[in-house]
């Protein structure tokens, strides 16, 4: 792979590789009170996002699980980090650009859905996704 490694490097940035190998926010979140899940119909990828929202509306914790590619996994991991500690409304304001800024990768249009799936799930979770 060595002579070709420059090409995938642009798609799979160091951030994506690192978050894919060692996601920081992956796993169950017992006691989560805002939960949502969705599927990317193109590839069948599935992401489930779990949030613990305090009565005053602050997101105390966020974790995710799912069957997903490196890009989608990294996006979910970054997103969980971005919303942790924020208010509901601040979390709802997180945009795809914010995630891309952290990922630092050249995402092609065909893979953009991999980045946006976790954001779709977040919107669902904040709009009343509940229970397990």
């Amino acid at each position, binding site marked *: *792979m060595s002579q*070709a*490694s420059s*090409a*995938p490097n642009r*798609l*799979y940035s160091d951030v994506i*590789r690192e978050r*894919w*190998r060692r996601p920081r926010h992956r796993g169950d979140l017992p006691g989560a009170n805002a939960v949502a899940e969705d599927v990317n119909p*193109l*590839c*069948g*990828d*599935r992401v489930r996002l779990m949030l613990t929202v305090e009565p005053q509306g602050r997101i105390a914790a966020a974790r995710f699980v799912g*069957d*997903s*590619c*490196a*890009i989608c*996994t990294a996006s979910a991991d970054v997103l969980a980090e971005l919303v942790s500690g924020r208010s509901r409304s601040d979390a709802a304001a997180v945009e795809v650009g914010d995630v891309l800024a952290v990922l630092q990768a050249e995402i092609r249009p065909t*893979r953009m859905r*991999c980045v946006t799936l976790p954001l779709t799930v977040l919107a669902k979770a904040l709009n009343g996704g509940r229970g397990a």
Partner: protein
Amino acid sequence: MKLDEQTRGDFPILQRIVSGHPLVYFDSGASSQKPRAVIEAMSEYYERSHANVHRSIHTLGEEATELYELARDAVQRFIGATSREEVVFTRGTTDGLGLIAETIGRTLKRGDEIVVTELEHHSNLIPWQLVARDRGAVIKAAPILADGTLDLAALDRLLTARTRVVAFTHVSNVLGTVTPVVDIVRRARSVNAITVVDGAQAAPHMRVDMSALGCDFYVFSAHKMLGPTGIGVMYGRRPVLDSFEPGRGGSEMIKEVWIDRAQWNDLPWRFEPGTPPIAEAVGLTAAIGYLEKLGMDRVAAHERALTRRTIEGLAAIPGVTVYGPPLAVDRGAVVAFAVDGLHPHDVAALLDAEGIAVRAGHHCAMPLMRRLGVVGTSRATFSVFNSPEEVSQLLTAVAGLRASL
């Protein structure tokens, strides 16, 4: 001369450089590349002969009609149909299966049963779901065995006096399983069910002979067999076609029309409403001519050798799983595989970075993915222009994948 050496120069697209590497195209199962003969036949048609068919009484109209109908003769010969009236042009496999489902659907009653298999592409599932919902019919699926072949004993148990349709794929677009069409047709006929065969992954790769297979319907797409997009074939056995009202209406498919009724045209036009894909039919004739010149038995042998080499090579790489029937069993030109710890999309993207095009995902066969217990797979599919050297490139690239992400 080896088949790939003979054919490579005929495919202009193989000159492409992708990610700095000469293109290795292993995605013909999704859509094949086109030889110059097909591309040129279509441009020549547009430059010299284009007009509408069956309605324009002028020189170009007559030329276009003749060329369009020549395609029907070519298909009849290619698939061993008894008569040209049995060859109906559609927009593709999905369109053909939809047309059949709608046509048969009108005659279904509550409680009628449609039998499919776990191998089906969504194109041979969703149209049946739609008509089943409308008519109160029931869909049942014959399962596969652990080795990826159909469980024929289970299929037998599903066939009852209520079975109206048995719809199944000839070659699985994921596992490469070749189903025993003759055997299934015989079983279906014993309960008077209509047989519908999805030949999308078979017709491009092996000799298919309607008189030998004996099925009632057989559908495939030109674009997977070196031909253009936008045209497909629905073969229907004459007595069966005769017994059905047209599924869809419009021009071309009628003889005489009143405000509230019409008299249907003869076969095959009765099932071809509207202006058909004319240039695409011309391209299909050229594609068939190209394949016939190579010889379908030679095509099948060449692709079988590539499939075998790929399966053996992949199976020898640690952490790689190959899906589908063992090599001893007849298989189509399809190899689905998984690399431990890598998502199929990442496998495809990393291979693309080396100029190798494979498909990744659920391959429009979600029930089969569920049966296999995976979200998706990576998949290499072969055509006449692929070489053993390209397979070696794929194997080397796959062996290096796990280290690269």
